[in-house]
């Protein structure tokens, strides 16, 4: 025992290594395709790794069971579901599977995680034959393919659902403040926020402490100003567009005083709760996934979604080179493991769950926007969801680089380290510039390593 305790520090590295080693001992199965035409999977088992839906555990269980049943009817194969709770769990699964050559046949990946998965080289690249097996590339909303691979000929991700970001707004609060339509520029957004702020209510609900929201704001405002952050072999976090983005983002609290000061401790769920309680006019960086929460709150019938502003801070129109980006390209992709001996079965499964009826059904249960063209089209008649569909078509993929994870981390870290200043009520430009400089150098180092 004593030695164990002495060795505790190698915990993460060591145990990781152990699992790699043990997994490596497992050997790798033969990779084979099971013929042509209709896939016969009798006696075979297809393993699929999906993220858990903590919001809808029962519904997900039922969907898993129903899908497995349908798949059995279709191919005769057994469908085995495995789940992960966080991106880190998922990465651990991918690591062990990649090294050992065994594990799930199909993975459901967050879109921004797709470049990292691609960089491991462990997933099937989609050629024409593969696309045909899942029903053709044309059946997907073109924008959703934007983060399937570095270019059209090197794609691994098959779009499954789309989760475009929009902002929710309190229709009554906007009306009371004399605002006839939601903001379309970030400056206007800030003005509206100030107008709506009065005792007991704030113009905005912002999740400053969220581990993902901050970088989405910064990236969005930057690319609208023409800076994609990763520009070829150069990271551009030290660009003036990024500083302007942080200035605007922190300024809503420090300068406009339009955000609840408690929001320096909020994650996205807490900001949503504040909006649902009718305490904020705008709740940016949400998706139609918030419909169930809002419909159960006093806000039912009093909110709408709108596109996030698409003109960068300090500007009245997008500068030349600025991109009309409503949202990061967000959602889930499906990838097939290169080591899988059941590739045809995997494609048959993906075809099944990306077909029109299945996608429409998935939207009904979970509120996730279909990537299937037909299924998405049929939602356009719903005025509540229409802005999200619009946002999906105006989503822009984050740079397809293995270094993106580090860039994202560096951008978030700036927000995390600025929270004490935010809480104190002012963010000095020198402190912010220092943090930006650090972020630039760590992100550039990560990009330099990218292969």
């Amino acid at each position: 025992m004593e030695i164990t305790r002495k060795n505790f520090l190698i915990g993460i590295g060591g145990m990781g290594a152990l699992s790699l080693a043990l997994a490596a001992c497992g050997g790798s199965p033969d990779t084979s395709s099971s013929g042509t035409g209709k896939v016969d999977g009798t006696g075979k088992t297809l393993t699929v790794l999906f993220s858990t839906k903590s919001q809808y555990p029962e519904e997900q269980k039922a969907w898993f069971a129903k899908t497995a049943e349908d798949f059995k009817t279709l191919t005769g194969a057994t469908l085995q579901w495995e789940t992960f709770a966080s991106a880190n769990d998922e990465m651990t699964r991918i690591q062990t599977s990649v090294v050992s050559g065994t594990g799930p046949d199909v993975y459901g990946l967050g879109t921004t995680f797709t470049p990292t998965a691609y960089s491991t080289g462990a997933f099937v690249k989609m050629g024409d034959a593969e696309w045909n097996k899942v029903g053709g590339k044309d059946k997907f909303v073109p924008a959703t393919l934007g983060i399937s691979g570095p270019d059209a000929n090197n794609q691994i991700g098959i779009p499954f659902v789309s989760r475009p970001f929009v902002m929710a707004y309190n229709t009554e609060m906007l009306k009371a403040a004399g605002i006839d339509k939601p903001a379309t520029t970030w400056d206007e957004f800030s003005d509206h926020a100030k107008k709506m702020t009065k005792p007991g209510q704030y113009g905005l609900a912002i999740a400053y402490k969220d581990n993902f929201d901050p970088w989405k704001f910064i990236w969005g405002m930057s690319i609208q100003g023409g800076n994609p952050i990763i520009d070829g072999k150069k990271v551009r976090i030290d660009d003036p567009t990024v500083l302007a983005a942080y200035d605007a983002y922190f300024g809503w609290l420090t300068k406009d005083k339009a955000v609840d000061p408690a929001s320096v401790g909020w994650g996205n769920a807490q900001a949503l709760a504040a909006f649902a309680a009718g305490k904020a006019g705008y709740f940016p960086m949400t998706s139609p996934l918030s419909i169930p929460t809002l419909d159960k709150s006093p806000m039912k019938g009093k909110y709408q979604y709108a596109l996030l502003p698409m003109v960068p801070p300090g500007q009245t129109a997008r500068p030349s080179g600025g991109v009309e980006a409503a949202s990061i390209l967000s959602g889930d992709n499906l990838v097939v493991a290169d080591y899988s001996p059941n590739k045809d079965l995997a494609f048959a499964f993906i075809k099944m769950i990306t077909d029109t009826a299945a996608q429409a059904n998935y939207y009904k249960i979970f509120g996730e926007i279909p990537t299937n063209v037909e299924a998405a089209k049929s939602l356009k008649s719903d005025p509540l969801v229409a802005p999200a569909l619009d946002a999906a078509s105006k989503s822009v993929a984050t740079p397809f680089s293995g270094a993106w994870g580090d860039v994202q981390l560096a951008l978030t870290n700036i927000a995390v380290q600025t929270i004490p200043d935010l809480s104190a009520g002012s963010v000095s430009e020198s402190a912010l510039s220092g943090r930006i400089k650090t972020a630039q150098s760590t992100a550039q180092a990560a990009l330099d390593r990218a292969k």
Partner: protein
Amino acid sequence: MTSEIAGNTLRDEATRPAGGPPAPQNKKRKGVTERDRPLWLLAPGGLLIAVIILIPLVLALYMSLIDLDQYTLRKWLTTPFIGVENFVEALTKTDLLRSIWISVSFAVVSTIVTVPLGVAAAVVTQNPYRGRAIVRAVFLIPYVLPSFVVATVWRTMLQPDGIVNSVLHNVGIDPGLWLNGPMSYWTLILVEIWAAWPFIYLLALAGLQSVDHEVHEAAAIDGALWWRKLREVIFPYLKGPVSLAFLLGTLNHINNFTLPFVLFGAPAPADVNVLPILVYVTSFQSFRFGLSAAMAVVSLILIAIPLFIYLRAVKLDVSDDGGKK
């Protein structure tokens, strides 16, 4: 057959000392006898240690010398060997040394506070009284609660608009931020103390149980009052268990990942960027497995040195026999 072997064994045991080889050889013979013990019976334990400790340690050492990241993970056996580059990077380009300092100082402070608390709690529940069982059970609550739960509850309470700040506002105090900024370091210590003191309490209680009844009686007959009895009679008994608790407690604090991770999230605020979080972020958010392995190895070495000195000083690693050797 069986009896014959048994007989032989017995005869061997009986005759050897009497057989009387010369003195110098006697010492050697003793060694041989020790080797003849059925040490192979330790094989299952040895195998377990190899699988759980030695192989991962060797792999971690190997990983720290190769350029293992998301790009090379798939072909990790042929990953380029880069010698000490990971170590140089860990020491010069990352927050490793700062993280080690934060981790060690936080752990030592936490232990220094929890030891008197734990010992006091053990002394308070040593003598029987009405309701003692309930007090003992209550004392164990922080220990049995999973770290995740403890951290989640504290995080909720310490939010800027949480219950702690509400109460403090009502009495006219503005405490500021608990979960970020310089105070987060003390928040981490506070929560760690809350969660960890029962561990010291348990070991101190075990130590107290080993004090002979006669010792209490003798102290009473000699007229020792409670403080003197505690200081000169009881505490010497506690030296061993409490030293052990001090050591294990400190290591547990340094090693605690869940508490800071759930309290502060990742990336962590700079003041609580403890070692496990740094290694975690390097491994699983930046995917620099080689670099994080090097960090782990450097930390292991840096912490093993004072640990070794401490172990020798308190002689926790040597039995009575071993001590005489």
